[in-house]
């Protein structure tokens, strides 16, 4: 039913932040002047009966849209155009080594229960993620902070363990929501934040209603609806039906198969963006034959990427280039030479590795990404022409992430991507991190690992661009992961709705902030 919605998707991925990247500009939609009013009814996939307002547990789109996108705020925000702007923080500055960060907080902000927002709230909200026994997905971010100091009621200073130029971006992560200090438990139980909408009713996995607060610091630039009703509809046919029959005004995750029918309906508009979400085939590079860079190169030329985009994503995606940095990242290397299907080159590299032909197993399950097994079979067919025999092993979906991923030498996987280059690389490609699914830390990755550390502490944008471009180039030609494609976010709304000139591409539904940014025309 909700294959893309699996908890893993978000857990592994996607927080906010598109460093100066490109929100997708859409033409044709009516760009009327925003106006207040109306109830936005949404049919949202990715809801669970175990949902709560605890940002640490959020991993699926429903709660991200309701908490991050309606009820709570973060310190920073990535806007629809992909730029980092302040949310509860007004401004911030770093020491030259990017180790000490000072955030100036917005004044006059109150929580929904009337408590004023200040420095204490920031510190306590961050400490939640490293509390004893807390299994927060944002723990690596917060545990990198050595010290948090309250400078005044509206100024906080963070001292990091090591310099990190991306720190303000990390503060836009949807897990790191601002809760009222001393009332965290009540706030988690009832959903008390500083956001544009306050909770009216919340039935986990079924329905949530939130209403606009009377006055808010975003007045005049966001929050146009009077109230939002979010109905959990995990079944994709039911969700599409609900939009087509006008029961809801917007739905996420449009079913690719019915997308043409919806496009033909004049009352429905489809909005589609290419972000950082990508599907991968990681190889364990410490296991033969993948320890041979020539074998890896041969496999990179043995896959027909365009065919995968056309047949697995039905065109709703883009060809990727064997590195995890996507079009929503600031330093995405657009002009990198594209690895493409070339059986002769694959044969050549195989010969370099001293082999005439090669037989390998590829483990796949649709738990990895929708259509993963079909994708593996297409790979099998295209690799055959290069003398590479791929045995596709269909693994059970249950327990896939525990028993296959990180365990089998070659398997299918997906990543929803990260807002920043360093975040993505340090999650899955830095030597020694737990999710390193290609284990690429041998001699031949030395330069890559060195650049990773250099880039993190570098504040100069041009130098960072150079560093990250080089890292993408190295991964693309020698890395241990095949990244054949980026998968688009495809959502749909009633044509009664209108939106600004840009649609965020960091996450589905306009960066999960449709409730803030859209209005009834």
């Amino acid at each position, binding site marked *: *039913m909700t294959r893309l919605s*699996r*908890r*893993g*998707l978000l*857990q*592994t991925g996607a927080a906010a932040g598109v460093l100066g990247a490109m929100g997708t500009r859409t033409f044709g939609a009516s760009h009327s002047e925003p106006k207040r009013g109306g109830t936005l009814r949404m*049919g949202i996939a990715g809801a*669970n*009966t*175990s949902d*709560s307002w*605890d940002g*640490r*547990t959020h*991993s699926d789109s429903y709660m991200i849209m309701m908490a991050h996108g309606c009820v709570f705020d973060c310190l920073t925000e990535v806007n629809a155009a992909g730029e980092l702007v302040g949310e509860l923080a007004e401004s911030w500055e770093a020491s030259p080594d990017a180790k000490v960060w000072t955030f100036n907080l917005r004044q006059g902000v109150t929580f929904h229960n009337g408590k004023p927002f200040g420095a204490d709230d920031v510190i306590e909200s961050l400490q939640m993620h490293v509390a004893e*026994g*807390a*299994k927060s*997905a944002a723990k690596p971010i917060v545990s990198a902070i050595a010290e948090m100091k309250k400078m005044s009621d509206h100024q906080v200073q963070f001292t990091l363990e090591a310099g990190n130029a991306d720190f303000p971006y990390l503060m836009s992560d949807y897990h790191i929501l601002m809760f009222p200090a001393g009332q*965290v*438990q009540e706030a*988690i139980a009832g959903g008390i934040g500083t956001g544009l909408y306050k909770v009216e*009713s919340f*039935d986990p*996995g*079924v*329905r949530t209603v939130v209403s606009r607060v009377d006055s808010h610091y975003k007045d005049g630039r966001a929050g146009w609806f009077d109230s939002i009703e979010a*109905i*959990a*509809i*995990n*079944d994709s*046919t*039911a969700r599409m*039906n*609900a939009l*087509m*029959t*006008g*029961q*809801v005004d917007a739905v996420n995750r449009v079913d690719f198969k019915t997308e043409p029918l919806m496009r033909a309906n004049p009352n429905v508009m489809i909005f589609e963006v290419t972000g950082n979400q990508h599907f991968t085939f990681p190889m364990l590079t410490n296991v033969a034959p993948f320890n041979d860079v020539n074998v890896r190169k041969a496999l990179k030329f043995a896959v027909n990427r365009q065919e995968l985009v056309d047949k697995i994503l039905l065109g709703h995606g883009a060809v990727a280039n064997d590195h995890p940095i996507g079009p929503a990242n600031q330093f995405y290397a657009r002009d990198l030479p594209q690895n493409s299907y070339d059986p002769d080159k694959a044969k050549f590299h195989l010969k370099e590795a001293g082999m005439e032909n090669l037989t390998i197993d590829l483990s796949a399950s649709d738990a990895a990404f929708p259509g993963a097994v079909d994708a593996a079979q297409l790979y099998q067919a295209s690799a055959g022409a290069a003398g590479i025999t791929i045995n596709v092993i269909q693994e*059970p979906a*249950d*327990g896939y*992430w*525990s*028993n296959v*991923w990180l365990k089998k030498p070659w398997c299918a*996987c997906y990543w929803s991507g990260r807002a920043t280059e360093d975040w993505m690389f340090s999650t899955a490609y830095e030597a020694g991190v*737990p*999710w390193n699914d290609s284990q690429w830390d041998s001699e031949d990755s030395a330069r890559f690992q060195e650049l990773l550390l250099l880039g993190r502490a570098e504040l100069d944008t041009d130098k960072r661009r150079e560093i990250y471009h080089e890292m993408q180039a190295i991964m693309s030609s020698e890395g241990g992961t095949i990244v054949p494609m980026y998968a688009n976010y495809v959502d749909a709304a009633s044509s009664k709705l209108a939106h600004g000139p840009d649609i965020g591409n960091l996450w589905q539904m306009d960066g999960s902030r449709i409730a803030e940014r859209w209005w009834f025309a």
Partner: protein
Amino acid sequence: MGSVARIILQRLVLGLLTLLVVSIVIFTAVNMLPGDFAQAILGQGATPEAVDAIRKDLGLDQPLVVRYFDWLAGALRGDMGSSFAQANFASFVGAEAGERVTVLDQIAPRFSNTMFLATVTAAIAVPISLFLGVLAALYRNSVFDRAANIFTLTSISSPEFFLAYILILFLAVLNPVLPSLSNIFEGMTFADRLEKTLLPALTLTLVVTAHMMRMTRAAIINLLASPYIEMARLKGISPMRVIVRHALPNALAPIINVVALNLAYLITGVVVIEVVFVYPGIGQLFVDSVKIRDIPVVQACCLIFAAAYILLNLMADILSILSNPRLRHPK
């Protein structure tokens, strides 16, 4: 009447035994599925440490037998525990055991929604089936009989979701008279709730009518060959009266049984309909819980389902005994 009381008691004891067996079967079956709660809830983030931590929190590291008897001891005290999802979450925010949302808290609203749907469906389907059944028996082998048979058999033979989509097409898309989304919630007026429930109830009516109608028809026709019916006919009683007054009371036992069976189905077997219409019933909760291997919820749901079958069958048996003087006064 003493014999009826004894039968009820006997059946109730047997029913409890059945529930015990069901609970054992479900417990082992869920455990035999690949993956467990910790792996399911963590997904891609299932590092060995995180999996171990959750297993330890929830006691999943204990042997199967120990866990079962822990659960059983709680259940016998009426404490169905907290779902794994809630227990895991509570350990997260440091909530006390007493503050946790229990399985019963979670199930109660869903179960009452399911009962509402079942009641609405039964209120439509049972009278229609009996009425059609009697008419079909009365005009057996006529065009009406054939038409009713073909229609109900076609609808029972089609997959539920297909019927649901057909009804949505005709009643929600082409002629928007009913909402295709049945997201009922607390605080709705009864009329709203009824309107939202109507489409799933109509779909289920199509699913269950054939069974009840054909049983009514068959039971009545079976009796029509009896001498006492012939006697009634010879007395010159009208065919309608023969059936309603003379045949139907004697055909009640099998009809009650098949009605009970279908009511039990309405309580336990409507997951597909719930998904198609986004109806927040117990079926969806059950399927979600199986998906994440949340054993306390799965167990509670299964016990409710099993109890529904047992009680409805018991009720059917009692009603058939009461409707039949020969059974009421055994020699």
